[in-house]
């Protein structure tokens, strides 16, 4: 995009001339926009006040509940619905970015037909006529008709099924991450084909065999919440990650067992054998035969995990009751993935976890998702020319099915292909006719993401007017009607309402239909606590280690991108700019290689590397990662689109091209962990944009840990650091000094103002900075700080961030960008260090050892934003007072006063200020970040900053003001927790707590005075308003 707009000198002079004219005429009456009021004022809209609607997230099948914030009839933010049983108020970054799917400038604007290879806009009438002609013909001739949908669940899935039935065709629910191995393994082991509900909260120890349950696996938000609750207990909560490549989930583990790819099965069975032979387990004792061959020594041979460690892990696993082992992630999906999951099932069975932490009550709804075998049957019939008409909605198999499946080529043989997608994705691009559907936020619908949950979607705004789209359900019904098959209600809404009648009887006893429906819409749906289905062990399949194909090179690990899921997130600039949580790379794909392997190939960070298999090759920048085994390379999925809009198209590589034809032996699922590759250095310059290149904190103590033994009182506090000896409140400082700092943080008046140094007090040698204390840099204050507004302050806003709960998922980053109109800048500017995000998650790899015998794993995540310092280094250096300290402890930044000297940023030790080097909000500039209608998302309560202005976190001051206003309207004091900045609201683990330090009962006060609290870079004496809570360090096995 940016290449297209280049000014030549003549144009520049012309524009400069216009600018001059505009300046001159500025003296006269200024040109004005018009104020267009409503013709008829809508009942539910009061201009200036937000209206909230409940709905359901459709960015992945987990189906979290949403609260959608609208202003003047347009959606400006989505948050989690606190009442919803799936996510209980939080929402991941992908879910929050659903807004940029709604307002994506590359949505299909109208129905289109392919004529002579080019797309031509047509009317809906014409489009339906064309479709009906082909469809009617196919139905009358009893030719093949097929419809492919995503895992929509609920009524739409039923409608699509009935539609296909009436057309005499097939309905295929295509979902790339289909959990079919998991379902198949559970069918074989427990006789129940389901994705179970893993109760992390109850578990006392978790072992993950390659399941990325904090990222994409299962229901990530719910799992993250449960996991954080488990980790909050110092006496238990041990977590071991068994995987060849350390994922974000694995980075949260106390111990990383870098198992040989495919060796997970042996380890799980070996652990089960130890439990059985030593008689430790609480569960099934009859399974000894199945695991007899897996002695610790045999396990060591098959998995590289030392026999000793197998025993220690098993003993601890059995002793922690209940414990939990999970498997089934994409990265570990090999030709033996059913065997792996069955092995883990067996381990859970012998440890007595089935029914305790592995439960079949609120199972995830993947019931209708087609096994890959069915996808292949459809491919075969398409290839054989048996399908005349193909209809696709929501799914993108051309991109997401591996190249070897031949989906794209087979689809080309279908006579007439119709897409109901809203975006021009790879599958739509191969179609003949586009009938664009509304976005989920514009639609009425429902979903049954889990057992006992009937979640509703409602239109949260009128359809975005530049896109002429219809509800997918109505399109299907119209198609059937025009083609003369089936008997459907007149409209999709009628179909939906009819489907909800049984639920009305069940949940709306005594209520009229209208009342029940309105209540359900307002709540977000209806739900009940499902009964747990009791399962019995019914046998296990044969266990065998998967063989990897192709030579003796490194194994290829393909993993689901935490940002892009299966690729559907790639069209959203927020998600492209959101750093990958483990590598911090943006807008690209990369090849993760162990530094030693890379050194052997002469590769440095970012160098292009070619990865080849028998199926194909890709070239992408190398990322040197100590969190991967030396005999593996890893590539994230989700990038490498050849369509799907300007933000996705042409970014990175599609690593699926590397997969040789390979399927799970038992279920037929696509095997992702199946190939060995040849890697070589490719020509070209290093090119990988990253927001954090540094992996070590270099003794800065930004992310701190505390051994659980200290918390439990069984060990003395660790020795204090030398450098912080003289710092009040620093680690190891005296009780008196700690008190002084605490008093500073929690008391009104002068304590909310910068502290003046006492006469004769010297700055400690290590804390010398370039700035002068404010009273020395400027003249003495006219009003003493102990008087005036500062003395009367009623709040000291502050935050406590629990590093033990933060798992690095970055939902807060997306929430902040959405709330505060933070622009995206693209990879080139990020390489120059000009990212604009107000909050970042710093990750520090303290200890990462890719040996399978490794004992400790220590990766730390620190949410870093403006610390709202009490004694802020940025304030005294501002020549124009654009940044100053407000009476409530906020470190303010006044945009209209800022002249852009950037002194503040240079003097900020936390580097949390971002500068508008370009005009990201000016439509005429190539750096414009909000092309219509992306700008519809902008929060009207927050100024959109312009070029030359410094900006930073404000603790969401617009929300503070709104909260204070609401309290004043109701003539009551503020309640703790009433005001939540966007980051705290969106956090799935509630790691961020916001509140008032002057209220001793507030949660933030309690956190800030707890045993684990510390301040980042406390040596500098900046008196931060953000208190961090140390991460707990557990004993490893």
């Amino acid at each position, binding site marked *: 995009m940016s290449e297209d707009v280049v000014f030549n000198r003549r144009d520049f002079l012309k524009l400069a001339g216009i600018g001059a004219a505009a300046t001159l005429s500025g003296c006269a009456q200024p040109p004005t926009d*018009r*104020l*267009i009021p409503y*013709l008829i004022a809508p009942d539910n809209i009061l*201009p200036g*006040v937000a209206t909230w609607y409940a709905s359901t997230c459709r960015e992945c099948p987990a189906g979290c509940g949403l609260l959608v914030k609208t202003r003047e009839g347009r959606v400006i933010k989505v948050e989690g619905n606190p009442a919803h049983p799936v996510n209980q108020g939080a929402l991941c970054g992908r879910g929050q970015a659903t807004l940029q799917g709604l307002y994506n400038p590359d949505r299909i604007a109208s129905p289109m037909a392919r004529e002579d290879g080019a797309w031509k806009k047509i009317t809906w009438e014409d489009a339906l006529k064309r479709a009906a002609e082909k469809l009617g013909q196919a139905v009358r001739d009893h030719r093949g008709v097929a419809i492919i949908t995503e895992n929509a669940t609920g009524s739409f899935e039923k409608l699509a099924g009935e539609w296909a039935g009436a057309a005499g065709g097939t309905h295929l629910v295509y979902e790339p991450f289909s959990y079919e191995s998991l379902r198949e393994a559970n069918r074989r082991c427990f006789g129940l084909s389901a994705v179970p509900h893993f109760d992390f909260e109850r578990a006392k120890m978790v072992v993950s065999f390659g399941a990325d349950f904090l990222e994409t696996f299962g229901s990530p938000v719910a799992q993250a919440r449960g996991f954080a609750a488990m980790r909050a207990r110092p006496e238990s909560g041990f977590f071991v990650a068994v995987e060849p490549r350390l994922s974000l989930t694995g980075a949260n583990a106390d111990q990383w067992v870098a198992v040989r790819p495919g060796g997970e099965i042996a380890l799980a069975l070996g652990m089960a054998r130890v439990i059985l032979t030593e008689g430790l387990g609480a569960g099934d004792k009859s399974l000894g035969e199945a695991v007899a061959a897996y002695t610790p020594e045999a396990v060591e041979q098959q998995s590289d995990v030392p026999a000793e460690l197998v025993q220690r892990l098993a003993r601890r696993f059995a002793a922690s009751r209940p414990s939990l082992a999970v498997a089934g992630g994409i990265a570990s999906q090999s030709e033996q993935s059913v065997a792996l999951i069955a092995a883990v099932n067996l381990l859970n069975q012998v440890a007595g976890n089935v029914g305790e932490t592995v439960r079949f009550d609120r199972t995830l709804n993947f019931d209708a998702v087609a096994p890959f075998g069915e996808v292949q049957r459809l491919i075969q019939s398409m290839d054989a020319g048996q399908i005349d008409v193909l209809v696709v909605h929501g799914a993108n198999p051309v991109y997401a099915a591996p190249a070897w499946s031949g989906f794209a080529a087979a689809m080309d043989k279908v006579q007439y292909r119709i897409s109901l997608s809203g975006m021009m994705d790879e599958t739509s691009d191969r179609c003949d006719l586009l009938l664009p559907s509304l976005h989920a936020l514009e639609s009425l619908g429902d979903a049954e993401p889990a057992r006992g949950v009937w979640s509703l979607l409602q239109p949260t705004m009128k359809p975005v007017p530049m896109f002429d789209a219809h509800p997918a359900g109505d399109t299907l019904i119209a198609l059937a009607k025009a083609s003369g098959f089936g008997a459907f209600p007149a409209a999709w809404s009628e179909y939906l309402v009819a489907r909800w009648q049984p639920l009305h009887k069940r949940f709306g006893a005594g209520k009229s239909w209208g009342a029940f429906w309105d209540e359900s819409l307002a709540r977000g749906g209806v739900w009940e606590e499902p009964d747990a289905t009791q399962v019995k062990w019914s046998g296990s399949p044969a266990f065998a280690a998967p063989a990897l194909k192709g030579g003796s090179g490194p194994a290829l690990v393909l993993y689901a991108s935490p940002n892009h899921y299966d690729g559907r997130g790639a069209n959203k600039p927020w998600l492209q700019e959101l750093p990958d949580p483990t590598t911090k790379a943006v807008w690209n794909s990369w090849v993760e290689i162990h530094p030693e392997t890379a050194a052997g190939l002469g590769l440095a960070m970012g160098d292009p590397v070619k990865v080849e298999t028998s199926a194909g090759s890709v070239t992408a920048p190398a990322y040197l990662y100590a969190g991967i085994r030396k005999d593996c390379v890893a590539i994230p999925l989700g990038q490498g689109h050849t369509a799907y809009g300007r933000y996705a198209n042409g970014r990175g590589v599609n690593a699926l091209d590397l997969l040789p034809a390979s399927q799970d032996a038992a279920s037929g699922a696509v095997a992702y962990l199946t190939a060995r590759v040849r890697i070589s250095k490719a020509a070209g310059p290093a090119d990988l944009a990253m927001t954090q290149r540094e992996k070590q904190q270099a003794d800065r103590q930004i992310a701190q840990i505390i051994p659980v033994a200290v918390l439990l009182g069984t060990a003395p506090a660790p020795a204090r650091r030398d450098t912080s000896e003289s710092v009040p409140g620093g680690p190891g400082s005296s009780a008196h000094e700690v008190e002084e700092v605490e008093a500073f943080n929690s008391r009104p008046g002068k304590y909310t103002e910068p502290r003046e140094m006492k006469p004769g007090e010297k700055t400690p040698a290590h804390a010398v900075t370039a700035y002068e204390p404010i009273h020395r840099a400027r003249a003495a204050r006219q009003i003493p700080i102990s008087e005036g507004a500062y003395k009367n302050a009623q709040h000291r806003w502050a935050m406590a961030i629990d590093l033990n709960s933060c798992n690095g998922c970055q939902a807060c980053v997306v929430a902040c960008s959405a709330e505060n109109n933070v622009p995206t800048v693209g990879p080139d500017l990020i390489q120059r260090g000009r990212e604009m995000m107000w909050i970042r998650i710093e990750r520090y790899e303290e200890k990462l050892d890719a040996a399978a015998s490794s004992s400790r794993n220590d990766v730390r995540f620190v949410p870093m934003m403006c610390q709202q310092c009490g004694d802020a280094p940025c304030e005294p250096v501002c020549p124009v007072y654009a940044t100053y300290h407000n009476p*409530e402890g906020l470190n303010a930044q006044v945009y209209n006063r800022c002249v852009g000297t950037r002194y503040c940023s240079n003097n900020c030790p936390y580097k949390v200020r971002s500068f508008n080097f370009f005009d990201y909000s000016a439509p005429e500039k190539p750096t414009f970040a909000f092309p219509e209608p992306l700008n519809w998302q902008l929060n009207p309560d927050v*100024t959109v900053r312009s070029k030359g202005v410094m900006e930073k976190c404000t603790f969401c001051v617009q929300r503070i003001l709104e909260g204070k206003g609401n309290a004043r309207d109701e003539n009551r004091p503020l309640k703790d927790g009433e005001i939540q900045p966007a980051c705290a609201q969106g956090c799935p683990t509630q790691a961020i707590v916001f509140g008032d330090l002057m209220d001793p009962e507030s949660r933030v006060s309690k956190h800030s005075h707890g045993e684990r609290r510390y301040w980042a870079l406390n040596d500098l004496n900046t008196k931060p308003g953000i208190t961090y809570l140390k991460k707990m360090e557990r004993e490893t096995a």
Partner: protein
Amino acid sequence: MKRALALATVVMLIATPAVASAQSFWAQLGAVKGPVQPIKFPHDIHAGKLGMDCLYCHYGAEKSPLANIPAVSICMGCHKIAVADRPEVQKLAQYWDSGKSIPWVPVYMLPSHVKFNHKRHVRAGITCQECHGPVEKMAVVYQYPSLKMGWCITCHRERQNRADSQNPTIMDCLTCHH
């Protein structure tokens, strides 16, 4: 060089006060000012002669940051019948009949970096006239105050200095600039 400098000084001396005082000058004179609106809506008749409450039309002012420009339906609530024969009211009816809204010309415009909250001011007991002037006497509404920051601050500072001042952030930049 000297002459150029002198000329520039003179131009600046003339220009600066002329621009700055334009508003207040006209305001004192009471001459016709304020933009030409698509319909000559007389505030003096509605708010003055008829004594209608400002909040009847601008109902957002006490519950929203925005005072709200009334929807055409609110006008038509009365003018379907009331004085439906007047030419200006017929213009209104034309808008209504054609299903189009009225493109009013804004009188009070704040830059986007200022967040003004009507609700807070109305609930603090400040009358509309304190900021908007004697609207009930204005045939054509014009911008009464300068809307410069100094004008806001004068009032805020006075309130802060009152002995019973309860709001420590009344003079805080962040209250309006965020």
